């Protein structure tokens, strides 16, 4: 009975122990050197021999039960402590993060990269070249001799020694064709310069020119490439119309309009209510140009096209003013 009472008291105390410290005190009180179970062992000494095994067993059993309860309670209390600690460490996860934000790439670069990727996928090479060019690479090699009316079409920036700022990226293609053997599949993106400044023109802008020269290359191929490129870039089906045109370096030449993406061809401010946007120039490379680059114009034919990157960026991202591209306002840059 004594054992029973002690056990019951112990169990009750354990159950009601509010924290680990109290539990530790209970443990000491019952299992310490001077604890209750120690007293019971002393008491056992005085118990008649015949009763010793029975009492001894009862005590051991009680000890086991108590210890088990202690361990259980300890676990419970420990997990309560853990829970409380975890809860106290609560964060306001809605607060802003620390450190610098990711920067950005300029929208023109993004668009240029996309165009490069589209053509790289087709096995095209990407070429680049100088921006200060000479007359030969910018005009003469392209079938534009002196006094040709086409020179007036492209108002050119000049230096005192007769060199100029390239008005298109065609010189890059000339250099490439002169330095290697056909077949060629290449694009040449880059900065170009024209003496032009108004609401839709800046003195510097970005162009991509592409060309393909091989033994079996036709105008029908050019149409296919351009239509597919536009659909790929604008991520929708695009209607185009090809208008016969004149460039000294291509023959036949065409200007290509695409259906206005802003209004799906119904007419709006972007397309001046025509439903069409003039988007690029192209044509079959003039045999004179191939000959200037030492390419056999009988064996090979080729096509070329040129497109304005800034314009594409404005159409795709709905940027209203070209001049924003070069103001570099961070509120503009950060959007891309």
């Amino acid at each position: 009975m004594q054992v029973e009472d002690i056990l019951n008291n112990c169990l009750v105390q354990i159950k009601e122990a509010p924290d680990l410290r109290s539990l530790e005190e209970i443990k000491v009180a019952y299992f310490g050197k001077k604890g209750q179970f120690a007293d019971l062992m002393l008491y056992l000494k005085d118990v008649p021999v015949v009763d010793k095994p029975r009492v001894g067993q009862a005590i051991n059993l009680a000890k086991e039960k108590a210890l088990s309860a202690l361990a259980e309670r300890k676990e419970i209390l420990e997990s309560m402590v853990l829970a409380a600690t975890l809860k106290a460490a609560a964060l306001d996860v809605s607060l802003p993060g620390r450190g610098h934000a990711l920067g950005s790439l300029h929208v023109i670069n993004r668009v240029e990269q996309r165009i490069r990727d589209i053509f790289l996928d087709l096995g095209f090479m990407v070429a680049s070249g100088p921006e200060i060019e000479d007359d030969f690479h910018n005009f003469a090699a392209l079938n534009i001799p002196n006094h040709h009316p086409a020179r007036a079409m492209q108002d050119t920036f000049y230096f005192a020694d007769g060199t100029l700022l390239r008005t298109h990226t065609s010189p890059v293609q000339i250099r490439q064709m002169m330095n290697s053997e056909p077949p060629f599949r290449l694009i040449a993106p880059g900065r170009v310069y024209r003496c032009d400044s108004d609401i839709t023109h800046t003195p510097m802008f970005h162009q991509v020119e592409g060309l393909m020269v091989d033994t079996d290359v036709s105008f029908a191929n050019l149409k296919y490439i351009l239509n597919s490129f536009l659909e790929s870039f604008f991520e929708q089906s695009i209607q185009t119309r090809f208008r016969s045109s004149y460039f000294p370096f291509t023959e036949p030449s065409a200007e290509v309009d695409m259906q206005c993406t802003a209004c799906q061809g119904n007419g709006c401010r972007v397309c001046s209510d025509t439903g069409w946007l003039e988007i690029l120039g192209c044509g079959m490379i003039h045999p004179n140009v191939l000959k200037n680059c030492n390419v056999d114009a009988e064996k090979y034919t080729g096509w070329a096209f040129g497109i304005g990157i800034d314009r594409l960026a404005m159409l795709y991202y709905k940027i209203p003013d070209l001049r924003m591209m070069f103001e570099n306002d961070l509120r503009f840059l950060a959007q891309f």
Partner: protein
Amino acid sequence: MKFPIEWLKEIIPVSIKNAEIAQILTNIGLEVEYFDKEIIDISIPANRADCASVFGIARELCAAINEKFNVPEYTAIEPDHEMSLHVKIEEPAKCPRYIARIITDVNASAPTPDFIKQRLTLAGYKSISVIVDLTNYVMLETGQPLHAFDLNTIAGKLIVRNARANEEIQLLDDSKCTLTSEDLIIADDNKPLALAGIMGGKDSGISLNTKNVVLECAYFEPTTIRISAKRAKIQTEASFRFERGICSKMQADALKRLTSLILKYAGGKPSITNHVKDQNNLPATKVITLRATRVATVIGHYFENNEIIDILTRLGFGCELISPREINVTVPSFRVDVTQEIDLIEEVVRIHGLNNIAPTPPKAALKFKKHPDAVVELSSMQHALMSLGYAQTINYSFISNALHELFFTPNEKIELINPISADLSIMRSSLVPCLLKVLQYNQNRQIRANLSLKIFETGLKFVKKQDKIEQIQVIAGATYGRLFPKNWADSNQIIDFFDLKQDVVNLFKLSNLDKDLEFKPINGMQGMHPSKTAEIIINGKKVGFIGAVHPEVINQLELKSDVFCFEIEVEFLQNAKSRTFKNFSKYPAISRDIAMLVDYDLPVVLMQKFINETCGELLKEIIVFDVFSGKNIPESKKSVALSLIFQDDQQTMNVEVVNELFASLIGKLQAKFGIELRQQ
């Protein structure tokens, strides 16, 4: 070229709506810029003088709608008398055909007929007087510019010659033109009468009192007219046509047309025609062989022989089939733009319709490209900077003189002779000035105290090297303001040199060159802070620079924060050092710290180099973990604390060995640099 639509519709054989006319012409290369019920305005391609006429447009339109247009034929007009001017052509190469015809007793003040006046007005011409109006009318109709002189102002003969240097003429628009020996003029015995092919002289022009006229109808070589017109800075309807190359055979007919109109509306007695020509200098008739197979190759569409012949015939070409798939094509004299087979191919496809060619995918052989491991693409560098918080900018390649001179000397400048404005007249020799302008722009538009700006650009810089200009691709960055944007969790620290330095090192890490970098202080760089700027060196070669912008420049640009910047030549970032595996030890490392006072001016890197040399292979890393001066530190000194990490590749390090090495090192440091140990 603008003109009334009814004129066009009057001369074509079918009835057709204005909108359809506009669409057809645009598709075949004659872009209609405007049309309404009355007028149509067509953009004439640079190589098609024949389209600068109502007849020319009519011919094109008819070809496109499967009709043939025929230029009317004119009957010869019998002369009433034989008065004539002697015509002498001194420059037959420049003027291989000149026809003069006198008409006496005209009524120069007769009214211009209404229908002619109206057509001219709608085409944008002012009605001046009947003779002049009729010359404009025939030019507009046929494409042949004509001119009329007052016979009574002409002394002696008509001479087609080069002007003498500084000879002068007052033109019809009252401007005075000083001529050169390259300019072709029409003159009489005494004086210039007209700037040939461009504009007539005022004194010899038709007035309301004119009684006797001399009509001029000529063919002038295109380049001559182009050069003279450009030099004199004059552009007229006549020069527009001549410089593009008109038909060299139409002069007689055009003159007949004008003569008959004058006789009809202004009366008069026509004289004989004086037709001077130099056959050798007139353009020869071209016959070009067109291979129908070649058409298919270039266009990617099969054309039957008769399809080709039909189109070319409607356009005025003569065709003769000489073999199953070859046609000899005779080029009409009004098509100066057609000189080779490819020009004919274009004629066929543009009339057939570019939109009627079905697109087909091209075929080509697959080819592998090189993809070397040890090359870093520009886009990787751009993405790296983006990850480090930089915003990419794109700036004009030209800047103002003032901006250039902040960083470079005047004789280094590369100047445009025709810039769009003074602000954009010098090619930039560095990208940094442009970045500073961007910082300035943004600083003025945002709340400054919150600004944390990091921007970069990649592009060419243009540098004068002796007589040549080098165009070098660089990547440049600039920083302004706070290290982090204003934020509850971030400090208010301002960006400094060492923040930027780590960005530069990170860029070179892409090329595996971060351990090969050397930063050498430089104090003479214009525009940069003399004590906070370094050249970036790899293997003894300068590849870029990094530093603080000079306070004076900051001031001049009204920037309100320190600015740090770097610029590196992309070539040296692109060629990476190849990577090969290097073994690292699996045995534990031992760390030893050393804190010391050193001379203030001693670059810490010299100590690092010395320690590396002294300790050899067992020293794996030196961490510079504390550098400061000021409180408790003598003025000429600074405190430098280093952690040295020792590790043996072959075995667990013996502590005794480390201690010995360390002690010996300290002694050497004291001897070499005069360091004083601090408490550790």
